[in-house]
């Protein structure tokens, strides 16, 4: 097994074995499902408020998983071992991000369908909303890797992490919400794909650089 496959497999196992992956998905579904109850059945209001709410819930769900992503590795000595691997740390970081996306981004994408229906999104728009969630969560994870790596050694670094990461979550949120509300879907999806690819390519490199400093 390659270092990439071994890391990917282990991270998935760890995320699912502790039930840690269920919490953010439950949070996402809970937050989006409660909105119609709180706002009442006014269809026009829900249609306007729904897309932004789906995206804010998705961003916060991913954010909640980031704080311990590298902190746990730093504390228990796993990070030292990753640094000693013959595989580049960038690849290992990428594997961790990929596992995080499969464990949380993908379920969030699927959960986006019931959430969008609860928020009165037209059914024919669901494929676009789910595609946009798949791309948007990938962008969140890529950016999140960097924030998580930078704050790995900060005790209770959650606030700092949010300050670093949330401004960078803005572009996917803007264009994701545009897709969900049906404005210029193709253009918004292309930009989202760009965000996702950029974050997936650059995130692991920046995160690995930050982690090398943390190991000192």
């Amino acid at each position, binding site marked *: *097994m*390659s*270092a990439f*496959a*071994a*890391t990917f*497999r*282990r991270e998935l*196992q*760890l995320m699912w*074995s*502790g039930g840690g992956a269920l919490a953010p998905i439950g949070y996402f579904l809970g937050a989006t499902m409660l909105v119609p109850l709180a706002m009442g059945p006014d269809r026009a209001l829900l249609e306007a408020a729904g897309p932004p709410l789906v995206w804010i819930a998705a961003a916060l769900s991913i954010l909640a998983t980031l704080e311990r992503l590298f902190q*746990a590795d730093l*504390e*228990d*000595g*796993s990070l*030292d*071992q*990753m*640094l*000693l*691997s*013959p*595989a580049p*740390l960038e690849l*290992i970081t990428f594997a961790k991000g990929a596992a995080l996306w499969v464990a949380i981004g993908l379920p969030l994408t699927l959960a986006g369908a019931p959430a969008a229906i609860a928020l009165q999104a037209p059914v024919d728009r669901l494929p676009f909303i789910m595609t946009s969630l798949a791309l948007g969560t990938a962008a969140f994870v890529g950016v999140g890797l960097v924030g998580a790596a930078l704050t790995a050694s900060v005790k209770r670094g959650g606030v700092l992490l949010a300050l670093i990461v949330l401004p960078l979550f803005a572009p996917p949120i803007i264009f994701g919400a545009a897709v969900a509300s049906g404005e210029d879907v193709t253009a918004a999806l292309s930009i989202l794909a760009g965000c996702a690819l950029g974050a997936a390519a650059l995130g692991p490199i920046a995160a690995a650089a930050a982690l*090398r400093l943390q*190991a*000192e």
Partner: protein
Amino acid sequence: MSARGPFQDKPQNKLGLRVEALTLSRGGRVLFDNLSFAAAPGAYVEVQGANGSGKTSLLRALAGFLRPQSGEIVFEGVDEPALAFHYIGHANGLKREATAREHLLYWAGLFSGSPSEDFVAQTLDLHRVLNTPVRALSQGQARRLALARLIVAPRSIWLLDEPAAALDDAGKAVLNELIASHRASGGIVVAAVHEPVGPTPTQTLRVPR
């Protein structure tokens, strides 16, 4: 410069570790300065010193995690720097939720070693707990599992920080055997210890000097 420290790239076959005029500081405090030593194949270098004297920092510098303030660390006769050494630190590098077997498989992938789980488990007497998650292991068993990395993937230089911590007498005996066979096959061991563990060191370094 590589993140793992400067390595000599000209082809040589003789393994060696050379440290020249090494100065390390942590948080603005100089731990030791001008430390020099060399280790040849089969060497067992014991690093001794009080708590906080810089034993761990020296090992972390050798592993390439810490950038020295000045001085040089040279590994000779190492073709592939990434395959040069193992570092067993204070922290065992284990995940509470994963089983011993899952750790062995993971390391085999991470270090491009071979997952000879049964052999590893036999050697370290872990076969009864192979499918037990780490949170249910004792301190000594967890330490043994951490030491299993030494067997999972062969490396020529072992950097061990208090390797015998939490080990019982049988565990210490196994550790000494591992060190002895590693030295016999031409490897180098650098161990930071609080009190001498077993093998007679070929060289003893006292920090601070």
